[in-house]
């Protein structure tokens, strides 16, 4: 299709009659690209559309009407009320838990990772590259494989089935350290640090007043990635938390879903899933530009 575009531009003769076609490609190339991109967009959107539509349906309509269109009545509010009243209001508790794990965990993780990344970027101590190598190596360890020994250790320490058992592992992000080091190296000039030293500022003060401010976009990026990582985490809370009062949203919905065989509460699971997706979807749309920098760091020349 692209070959076609070249011939067409050539065929249009020495006069540049079709600069637009040259810039945008031939109509055929444009059309086929558009069709393909739209088809893929449909694939990504269709399940979400189904979820939105289905959250407005009664149990009867879920089974009786076309899944991709609305049913006989719009019952979103009723369904949402049912979700929040189900099992003595467990759902709102799970939302708060998820916010605590993700918000608290990501906030702490960001600060800790930024301190470490800055130290690795700006203080050339002996063994620095070795330390960094170990941290990068840890990115390669699949989290579920750590969860079992963590569970055993936590049960020895007596913190199994507490908030801490999920929070403490969540505040460590090797990937965050990697990002922080990149950003610190790129955005905090050595000259500025030296100038602050000449002015008599202490090393820690330089970090907390000068460096942190310069690195603030990076802080948002690290926070976002860690927030989503914790929000999506399933294996660790599944192992650690037996008490459903401590569960995050994912675990709660997983449990409700696994009960569907015996309890036909489809409307509740569907609407609950939709509600659980909304906060993250909003965060995504509102903070788009911070994602981009994280993605580009993920693709940096290695």
């Amino acid at each position, binding site marked *: 299709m692209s070959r076609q575009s070249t011939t067409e531009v050539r065929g249009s003769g020495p006069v540049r009659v079709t600069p637009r076609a040259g810039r*945008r490609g031939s109509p055929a190339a444009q059309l086929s690209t558009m069709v393909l*991109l739209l088809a893929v967009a449909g694939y*990504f959107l269709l399940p979400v559309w*189904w979820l939105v539509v289905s959250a407005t349906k009664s149990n009867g309509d879920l089974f009786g009407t076309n899944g991709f269109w609305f049913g006989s009545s719009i019952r979103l509010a009723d369904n949402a009320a049912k979700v929040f009243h189900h099992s003595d209001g467990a759902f709102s508790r799970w939302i708060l838990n998820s916010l605590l794990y993700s918000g608290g965990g990501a906030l702490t993780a960001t600060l800790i990772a930024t301190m470490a990344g800055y130290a690795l970027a700006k203080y050339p101590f002996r063994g620095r590259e070795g330390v960094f190598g170990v941290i990068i190596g840890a990115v390669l360890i699949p989290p579920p494989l750590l969860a079992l020994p963590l569970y055993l250790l936590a049960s020895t320490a007596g913190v199994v089935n507490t908030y801490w058992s999920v929070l*403490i592992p969540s505040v460590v992000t090797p990937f965050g350290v990697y990002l922080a080091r990149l950003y610190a190296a790129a955005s905090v000039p050595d000259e500025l640090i030296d100038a602050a030293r000449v002015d008599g500022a202490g090393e820690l003060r330089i970090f907390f007043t000068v460096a942190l401010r310069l690195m603030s976009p990076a802080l948002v990026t690290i926070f976002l990635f860690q927030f989503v990582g914790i929000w999506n985490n399933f294996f660790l809370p599944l192992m650690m938390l037996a008490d459903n009062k401590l569960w995050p949203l*994912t675990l709660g919905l997983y449990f409700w*879903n696994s009960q569907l065989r015996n309890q036909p509460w489809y409307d509740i699971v*569907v609407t609950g899933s939709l509600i659980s997706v909304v906060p993250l979807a909003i965060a995504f749309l509102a903070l788009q530009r911070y994602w981009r920098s994280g993605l580009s760091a993920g*693709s*940096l020349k290695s």
Partner: protein
Amino acid sequence: MTGQVESTPASPAGHGRSRPTSTAGGGRPAAGRRPARSKLARRRNRTAGLLLAPFAVLFLAVFVVPIGYAVYQSLFRVQRSGLGLEPPETVFAGLDNYTRVFADNSFLTSVGRVVLFGLVQVPVMLGLALLLALLLDSRVVRLGRFFRLTYFLPFAIPGVIAAVLWSFLYVPGISPLVELGEKAGAEVDFFSADMILFSIGNIVTWSWTGYNALILYTALRSIPRELFEAAEVDGCSGFRIAWHIKIPLLRPALTLTGVFSIIGTLQLFGEPMVLRPMASAAISNSYTPVMLSYQAAFGLNDYNFAAAIGVVLALSTFVLSYGFLRLSTRGSS
């Protein structure tokens, strides 16, 4: 990996690197200034230590110690006396647990299953991601922003919720897809033993393709445009530019997404767990290696065996990712 990645961030701070060697006595500073300098270096090292300490302590606690503990656990077993009258005791077992792991049929089957899954799903996903990234980067595209947002959307949906969502789209009676299939005369049972691996692969592909596509797209955008413009002036078609210039330059980003996809495949757990109640005939409790390890630990209370499985998996992951890195960086640079 280590050697590869560390070179990147080190280079911007590169000129700072020579500093400590000279302060540490490598150079020959004037005799009078020397103590002051080393004091300064010591103070800075202390600051670096202070800044690193919180991360280091927690890293030890949730990465290093658990790994060590898993290895330790895997070398023991719990022995119960014949009559069960005395309390069980833990005895050193050497490599017995590892022999058990490799002799265990369900372990070997589950490993074979995820390897097969990865061999099909990862290339399909990354191929599609690469195609999308190249199209989004091409001059032909319109509505680029809309497409980028749409493709990123599944990343915002937790894996477990994505699996719940798709499981509804697989269930006969609720799913409009199954209904459409029936109208077209095809009875599709997404939970059957033949289809289940595809059904899981579809969920994983749906969740991660857009994310990978955007990583590749971002990498493409960071390539200087002049490289393509020169080729265009020389009469290169968009396709040839993509094949000869863009894809080779994308190699590091492709490698990275490849490594993370391999890691993701080996830890397959959430999706089959969610589908299991609906597909209990097709998904056993040892369907994937992580499920087997979970079952060993919480179903059979055999923590030592579970730990051995974990160690084997962690090592295989490491070897596979490292091998993949070596393989894909061979010949470049």
